[in-house]
């Protein structure tokens, strides 16, 4: 018998007792295949606003946070020495916030793509109750210090996470930061720096123009006002204020020699919130158009020329204020606060118009192809007011300022944005940091799209795959694309070879009738 055991032993050696798991010639999960280059990803901290937090569908919720671009990047960093990445997760996948058990106004649950009784899909607020209580303070620190709603200077404001600031007037705190601020007087940047990041990302400044844009330019361009404590939520931040805050943050984050990536500000016109509602959107038949033109005849042929004759407005302004409807699709009428307000003048001689008519015509013009209607206008365009068929939004009642982003308002945004982006890029190069051009990347998504394995990512609302149902924030797929853009920039700067992700594996809008 012993002899045969010998034979078996020979056989066993012959086959070498090959290891259980088949081994690749170059296994990618072994040390050295992916490298961090000059960078060190062991402690990555992400700083920013809603985009960094993983905000989508109008709110923050767990699965969205899990698909935030910093979390996606951290998972890839783990292939080359990246450490654990923690996030201040919400309590549910509903979104929305509670304070003392009561919903905080303006912090609603998420949008989902629901179907109506006829089976037609459309965004709707999910029919579930938020459970995330802001006063339930989480103990950090958290690698992801993205705070939805934050503007550049907010990240430096002590008290931004003070729960008491949620009930002051005006509100001085941010409920998202209240949830995980290390102390009531902590700053966002302070909480980031305290973690001694070996690597950081900073994407801030979007809200310094976005609030103005989404409100249709109803806020104030604060250029020239260097005191951000006087700013409202829909204002444009002064570029010098931005530059000061931004350089202070970069200085703080790099003080310990950390490497990082700075991300610039995309165009507001790259997001479906501003590209979905067509400006020329009022359909009229010939008799209605003729009837309306009769009503505006006096304004076009008498009021406007008279105002020019009296030197109140220029001939150019008069031309821009002409109202003319035609059979087919028409531009709506609107109130433009950049026009000369002639309400008072029209009530005096020689016109002696009644107050209501004068107010209607005071800053009236017809929208044109250079104006942008935000997504919020979709719900009111062409709707009848108080069941009065003579009161139709955009036809007989001008659209309010908040429903039109005029070309003048767009220009203010662009000026500020360009200045911010110059600051960001120059600070990146001055500090030897990676620079991610999110602006160009999103332009590509918006103009024709970006192809991937199994489709094309575009910014078309609902169906494009890139943007969630709030029209502003990306979907998980959009965030995955963003992560790839940042990873490319990081690899280029630091000589690392962190792989991107297959964005086709990431979800788009969430369907649900819950």
């Amino acid at each position, binding site marked *: 018998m012993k002899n045969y055991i010998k034979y078996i032993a020979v056989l066993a050696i012959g086959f070498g007792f090959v290891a259980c798991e088949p081994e690749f010639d170059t296994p990618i999960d072994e040390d050295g295949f992916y490298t961090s280059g000059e960078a060190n990803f062991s402690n990555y901290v992400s700083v920013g606003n809603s985009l960094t937090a993983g905000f989508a569908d109008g709110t923050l919720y767990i699965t969205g946070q899990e698909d935030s671009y910093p979390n996606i990047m951290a998972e890839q960093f783990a292939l080359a020495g990246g450490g654990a990445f923690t996030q201040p997760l919400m309590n549910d996948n509903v979104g929305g916030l509670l304070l003392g058990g009561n919903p905080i106004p303006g912090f609603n649950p998420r949008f989902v793509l629901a179907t109506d009784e006829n089976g037609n899909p459309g965004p709707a607020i999910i029919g579930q109750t938020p459970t995330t209580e802001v006063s339930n303070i989480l103990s950090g620190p958290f690698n992801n210090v993205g705070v939805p709603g934050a503007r550049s200077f907010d990240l430096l404001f002590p008290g931004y996470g003070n729960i008491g600031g949620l009930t002051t007037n005006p509100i001085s705190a941010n409920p998202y930061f209240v949830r995980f601020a290390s102390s009531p007087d902590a700053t966002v940047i302070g909480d980031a720096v305290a973690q001694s990041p070996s690597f950081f990302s900073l994407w801030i400044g979007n809200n310094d123009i976005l609030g103005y844009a989404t409100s249709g330019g109803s806020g104030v361009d604060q250029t020239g006002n260097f005191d951000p404590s006087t700013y409202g939520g829909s204002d444009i931040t002064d570029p010098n204020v931005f530059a000061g805050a931004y350089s202070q943050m970069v200085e703080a984050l790099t003080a310990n020699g950390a490497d990082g990536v700075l991300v610039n500000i995309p165009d507001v016109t790259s997001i479906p919130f501003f590209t979905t509602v067509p400006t020329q959107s009022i359909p009229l038949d010939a008799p209605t158009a003729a009837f309306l033109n009769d009503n505006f005849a006096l304004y076009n042929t008498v009021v406007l020329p008279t105002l020019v004759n009296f030197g109140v407005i220029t001939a150019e302004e008069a031309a821009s204020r002409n109202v003319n409807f035609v059979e087919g699709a028409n531009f709506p009428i609107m109130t433009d606060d950049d026009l000369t307000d002639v309400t008072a003048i029209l009530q005096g001689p020689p016109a002696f118009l009644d107050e209501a008519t004068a107010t209607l015509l005071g800053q009236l013009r017809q929208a044109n192809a250079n104006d942008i209607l935000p997504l919020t206008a979709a719900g009111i365009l062409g709707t009848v007011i108080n069941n009065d068929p003579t009161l139709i939004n955009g036809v007989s009642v001008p659209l309010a300022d908040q429903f039109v982003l005029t070309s003048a308002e767009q220009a203010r945004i662009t000026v500020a944005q360009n200045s911010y982006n110059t600051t960001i890029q120059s600070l990146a190069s001055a500090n030897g940091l990676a620079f991610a051009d999110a602006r160009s990347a999103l332009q590509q998504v918006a103009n024709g799209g970006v192809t991937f394995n199994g489709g094309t990512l575009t910014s078309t609302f609902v169906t494009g795959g890139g943007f969630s149902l709030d029209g502003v924030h990306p979907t998980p797929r959009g965030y995955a694309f963003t992560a790839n853009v940042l990873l490319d920039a990081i690899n280029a700067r630091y000589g690392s070879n962190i792989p991107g*992700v297959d964005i086709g594996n990431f979800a788009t809008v969430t*369907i649900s009738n819950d």
Partner: protein
Amino acid sequence: MKKVVSVFVLMLVCAVTYAGGYRVSLQGNRALAMGHTGVAVVNNAELAFFNPAGLVHLENKINLSVGGFGVFADVSYQNAQFGDATSTDSGVGTPVYLYGSYKVSESFALGLAVYTPYGSSVEYPTDWAGSHLVNNIELQSIYVQPLFSWEVVKDRFSIGGGPILAIGGVEFNRNLSRNLTDLDGNRSNVTLDASGILEFGWSVGALLNLDNEDKWKLGFNYRSLIDVEVEAGDGEATFANVPNSPLAPVPNGTFDFTASLPLPAEWTVGLSYRPNEKWLFAFDYNYAEWSAYESLDIDFLNPDGSVALQSLNPRNYKDASTYRFGAQYSPSGKLDLRVGYYFDESPVQPGFFAPETPRNDSNGFTAGFTYNINEKFAIDASFLYLRFEEIDASYDFFTETNGQTAPFRGTYKSSAFAPGIGLSYKL
């Protein structure tokens, strides 16, 4: 004896083995040790599988052979572009066989064969990168076959064969798409479960003595195609974690389904040469008609029998050959030593490399022995190491919900071991 067993238990530590597709070529320890040759080898009751025409040539009145294998098959996957890497955790497959023959007269024998020629067991980590193609699959088949063996021309030519009752079963889970989840992020998936499906087939073989000294033999065997048809009511498909929306492809819950999976026909021709009492050489050529496996199409049915959802999965297999070589050396009456080699051609064509049967061409190296305990009993043992080259492959026919195809690419490396042990009895 105990020591032999314990050595084999040690050898069970890790291993695998499949032939091309989901054919599991482990139908006898003696044959496997010689590269799974046997169509022209008259040795023991394993002939019931390899060539029933040979049963009548067994010297004894009653011949029994029973045995099994531990199959340790694993697959590693990686994709350097995205940093995905994973390995299957497939457990141990245990194909078994039982063969018997009874010589009714000098020229006629009856037999019975029970064996498991097709099967597959692959388990990836749930929600891995290819989970839209497969999370796990377990495919089983048991063939039960009564046989006859008739010597048509004395000392020259015999035939054999019989009907096959096939019992099939499948368990299969995969995600519905690359990214569909419920509200809480759980991946939407479907589990198919069907077992006890009965189908019929047949096999026939012939054996020819080429010379008068019993040195050269030529064998032929054919086993028919068996289509395992899952009809409505045979099994159930369970959809889970599907979001609550009419926009989802299907709601959560259990559905009847229909599907069809071919267990392909295989024919074998082979030669054996026994120059003297000590040596035996064998060569087999298998041709498996895998082209029968065109597509795995599954219809999920509503209660009224209408189709709720269809899943079309092109496979487009091609017919495939296997070349087998074996040698046996008998130093004494107590012991036979065997070695073998085979080259197994994969039926999977480029672009159709689905991770549920990730098989490329392989080289099988085999060895084993028989120890004759006494006149009646013998222990048969064998060992197979199946070697695969690593391969860059893709499955190009997954269709996204938007109608666009999304190829699934990566590098695969498989390995397989199968130690086996059996018992032969003759009376």
